[in-house]
């Protein structure tokens, strides 16, 4: 039809003015070089992650809390004070302290910061309107969700694993001479510390999923806190027999099994805990994907 023909014929002319062509000599090969690909969306989300001050601060806070509380817990440890030391939360309830459980004391704080980071990365786009730009560029939408998860998950995993290692190493001198002292080479220590990183990496993805699902920072953060901190407490209202059966499968309990040095009697094994927690995250991601594709923005 004539209108299309007109555009095709005349479009090369535009390259003199507004051309993106890096090579002005070949202005007639225009349309093919721009294309949205999965890798490019990932690259875009990677750049978005690092170009916001709020993300960097939240990430820094998460790692800082992890290292700080881990180190402090090790230094203030005294065998007489029994297991009541440390804040309430997953990880501290599983019996006696050991060098690893002290080092990962900060996980219960860091998980909030890292979860909030995930929420901000996703819901922040909705509250600012950025999502319209994002989805106009990637109208298939789902690559955006996968890319956000694929960016924040590994970043959180790597940095918090390093954080957990640092907490352990910093805490080691503090436990010098104590019965519970361990070194990195001891059985299960590295696995537990990496488990903490793995758990926090998944928490970050969980935050992204909640953010995309709820599209609202406050709501998503509330949901995050609810699921990770409040749900286990609420569930204790259940009849005992139910509670005993169900509680290992709660997200936070399954998660803390991932980084426990010794499997406690009422918890899952690290592998099973990881599978269960990853399952929760996957479920939330699926919900987020459904809403992302189905509803207007």
């Amino acid at each position, binding site marked *: 039809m004539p*209108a*299309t023909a*007109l*555009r095709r*014929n*005349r*479009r090369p*002319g*535009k*390259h003199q*003015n*507004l*051309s*993106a062509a*890096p090579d002005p000599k070949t202005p007639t090969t*225009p*349309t093919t*070089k*721009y*294309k*949205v*690909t999965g890798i*490019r*969306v990932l*690259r*875009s989300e990677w*750049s*978005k992650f690092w*170009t*916001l*001050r*709020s993300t960097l601060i939240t990430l820094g806070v998460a790692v800082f809390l992890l290292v700080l509380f881990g180190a402090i817990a090790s230094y203030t440890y005294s065998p007489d004070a029994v297991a009541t030391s440390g804040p309430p939360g997953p990880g501290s309830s599983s019996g006696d302290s050991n060098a690893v459980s002290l080092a990962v004391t900060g996980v219960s704080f860091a998980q909030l910061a890292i979860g909030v980071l995930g929420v901000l990365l996703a819901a*922040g*786009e909705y509250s*600012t*309107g*950025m*999502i*319209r*730009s994002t*989805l*106009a*560029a*990637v*109208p*298939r939408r789902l690559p955006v969700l996968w890319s956000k998860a694929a960016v924040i998950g590994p970043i959180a995993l790597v940095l918090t694993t390093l954080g957990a290692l640092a907490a352990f190493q910093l805490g080691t001198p503090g436990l010098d001479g104590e019965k519970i002292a361990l070194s990195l080479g001891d059985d299960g220590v590295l696995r537990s510390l990496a488990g903490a990183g793995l758990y926090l990496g998944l928490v970050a993805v969980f935050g992204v999923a909640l953010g995309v699902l709820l599209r609202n920072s406050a709501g998503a953060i509330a949901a995050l806190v609810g699921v990770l901190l409040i749900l286990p407490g609420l569930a204790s209202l259940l009849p005992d027999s139910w509670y005993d059966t169900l509680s290992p499968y709660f997200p936070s309990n399954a998660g803390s099994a991932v980084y426990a040095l010794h499997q406690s009697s009422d918890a899952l094994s690290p592998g099973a805990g990881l599978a269960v927690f990853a399952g929760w995250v996957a479920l939330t991601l699926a919900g987020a994907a459904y809403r992302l594709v189905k509803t*207007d*923005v």
Partner: protein
Amino acid sequence: MIEARELTKRYGDKTVVDNLSFTVKAGEVTGFLGPNGAGKSTTMRMVVGLDSPTKGSVTVGGRSYAKHAAPLHEIGTLLEAKSVHPGRSAFNHLMALAYTHGISRRRVDEVIELAGLTSVAGKRVGAFSLGMGQRLGIASALLADPAIVMLDEPVNGLDPEGVLWVRNLLRGLADEGRAVMLSSHLMSETALIADHLVIIGRGRLLADTTVDDFTREASGGGVRVATTEARKLRSLLAGPDITISSSSAEELLVTGRDAREIGAIAAQHGVALYELTPQAVSLEAAFMDLTRDVVEYQSAPADTERKAA
């Protein structure tokens, strides 16, 4: 080219866009007009797939938007207000969009310069004025060198220099063979830029016409003439199909003859004229006439004009 076919959007029982069909052609500037709440923004969101139509369809360059391999290369969009994270710098914002399509950093610098944002490109967008935000929006619309440019109220918040810049820019884009669509609730402003007009009210198509036609129909307003010899001039101008009214002793309102004719006749007979004004202002009035029944948020009569302006 944008083609909307029986496009309909309902939210609950409220129909925001109602069976709307129109075409935006390459090489033309199409003005998309309607009072506040007419459904302009919703329509534009449906064009780029942010909202999905309840019924009907809209295609961009022959396909639905999401089916394009490089959607930003097909159509560049400025949507209402800021669709930008305020914590990111203008440069980083554009870079983030550029990465998705494999657009070079050079091109990003190019549109920043084109939009006159070079000096503030490193600043956080949150610190931008409304006008600078609009410029950034226009820069992102042009980023991927699109065949179609669609802008929602682009001159909103721009200073006179910015308005002129947008006007020339859009004209230039259309002259290069691109399709340009811009929405506005200001007829007079749009008539200066657009070739084609799509006017909607309450989501329904009210007029699909050219600016020339619309102006011709609207300019039934006649020519205002001021002279001390009103009586003499009135008899000189009189003729079939010509109506002359007067609001004061020295003023005539002539319909049926254009300003040129009137001036020539007056000169021939030595009548001095103090004013000779074609009543083109009635564009806005004609637009308001057209949309009066469908204005979503009707204001008290005394307010009407201010609201339109």
